[in-house]
């Protein structure tokens, strides 16, 4: 059901996209990518390869300097025009420190002008999905790092997004918390039938989570290759220690290493 077969409709189309910053840094060069409905697509690669830049472009937070993007085959207006929703989870929880968890989670709904009475059920449902029901009245600082991240995910889920973009969401957490949240995220992805684009620099995390992995290289940022992780869901902790997991991780490692090596000649002065 979540295999996201090749014929699943393309929801985001990235064609020959370049992004050059005003400083002259070329963050992305000639990126092509199709995001298909229902897939869990992960971007991995060395730092500076433009993973986050690509995610910000897809979110509509910045515009490409070349090429084009299409959302739901409907052109540039990606949320207003098509009624589709994109949510974003950042590297940090980015919660409002002065507001309770409930108010933080309600934020996207209240910004959209939804009356408070109507939001209650949705906020409660979102909190329940990330196991924070008992913490609605707490302030962010009263929660652990992992719980803050779950609150941030609840805030992203409350709009029932069609596409969830996550930019190294668990990068700052310890390994145990990260593994637990990875598992919870997969369960949410199954239950919500949404599409997830996930950025990480952890190969193991990429293998564990994804239906497909795009490996990126730096200088300039580009996509080297995409891999399908053809393993059934739900994926348990047993999958982490299986031989197939190790094989996938090894293949991916080799590819990422190649991506790093690829950048070397560029970094050294021409002979």
């Amino acid at each position, binding site marked *: 059901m979540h295999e996201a077969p090749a014929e699943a409709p393309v929801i985001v189309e990235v064609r020959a996209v370049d992004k050059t910053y005003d400083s002259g840094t070329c963050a992305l060069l000639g990126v092509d990518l199709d995001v298909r409905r229902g897939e869990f697509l992960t971007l991995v690669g060395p730092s500076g390869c433009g993973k986050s830049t690509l995610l910000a472009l897809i*979110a*509509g*937070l910045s515009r490409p300097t070349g090429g084009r993007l299409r959302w739901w085959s409907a052109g540039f207006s990606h*949320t*207003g025009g098509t009624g589709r929703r*994109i*949510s*974003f989870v*950042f*590297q*940090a929880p*980015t919660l*409002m*420190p*002065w*507001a309770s968890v409930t108010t933080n989670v309600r*934020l*996207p709904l209240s*910004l*959209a002008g939804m009356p408070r009475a109507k939001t209650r059920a949705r906020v409660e449902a979102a909190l329940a999905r990330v196991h924070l029901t008992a913490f609605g009245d707490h*302030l962010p*600082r009263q929660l652990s790092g992992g719980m803050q991240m779950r609150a941030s995910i609840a805030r992203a889920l409350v709009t029932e997004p069609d596409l969830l973009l996550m930019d190294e969401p668990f990068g700052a957490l310890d390994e145990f918390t990260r593994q637990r949240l990875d598992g919870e995220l997969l369960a949410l992805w199954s239950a919500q039938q949404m599409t997830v684009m996930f950025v990480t620099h952890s190969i193991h995390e990429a293998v564990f989570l994804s239906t497909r992995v795009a490996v990126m290289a730096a200088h300039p940022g580009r996509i080297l290759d995409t891999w399908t992780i053809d393993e059934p869901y739900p994926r348990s902790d047993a999958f982490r220690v299986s031989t197939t997991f190790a094989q996938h991780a090894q293949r991916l490692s080799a590819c990422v290493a190649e991506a790093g090596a690829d950048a070397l000649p560029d970094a050294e002065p021409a002979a």
Partner: protein
Amino acid sequence: MNRHRSQQALRVLAPMFVAIVFLAAWQAFVTVKAIPPYIVPSPSLVAHTLYADRVLLLGALRVTIGIALIALALATLLGILTALLFVQSRWIEMSLFPYAILLQVTPIVAIAPLIIIWVRDTRVALILCATVVAVFPVISNTTLGLRSVDRGLIDFFRLSRATRWQTLWRLRVPSALPYFFGGLRIATGLALIGAVVAEFVAGTGGQGAGLAYQILMSGIQLNIPRLFAALVLIALAGVAMFAATVLVSRVALARWHESELRHES
């Protein structure tokens, strides 16, 4: 908890101890050296004068505090409005900020005579002078605060298609509060200083006379104990006003901001 309470007690007792030692030394010095009260009055004589001249001095204190408080309120209002204007665009800020600095670096003693000439009502003139002195920290701190917003939250508001007004009211204003209160603390002291200094220049008299006038007159009449008593009142008023702003900021920020959190360890 117990430890916290003893900390709290120390916070009150330690400065009190310093005051007692200081006053005792002062009293002893004046008595032993037989220094005449028109040079340095003893603390007991100052206390006695404070009581004997209470009607005159408290009346003057009321005038000065009234001017300082109105000036503080005006400075807060004008400061916030100016800061809100500044953050609307970099162009506005770049064009106007130098003039805010100009206002800040020009000594009030130099512009007070002008204001007093232009504004007929002395009380209004004094309020204006004190406002000019107090407004700058509110402007600069609030502007800084309105700009110091978490980058990620700004992006989140953009993604949620928040209006300019929503971003201002629900994100920038709460983020700016700690900075604003920092500015308010400075402005409180400046408003009082402004009220006193302006009165020195204006030279009021009769009904509307504040503490500065009393100090001036006491100096001319060599009534040094009364001069000291007036100084004590100004100092106490300043401390009280400062404490009030600290309290307000504590109530407003206690729940979430680092500066007001009691770290449990």
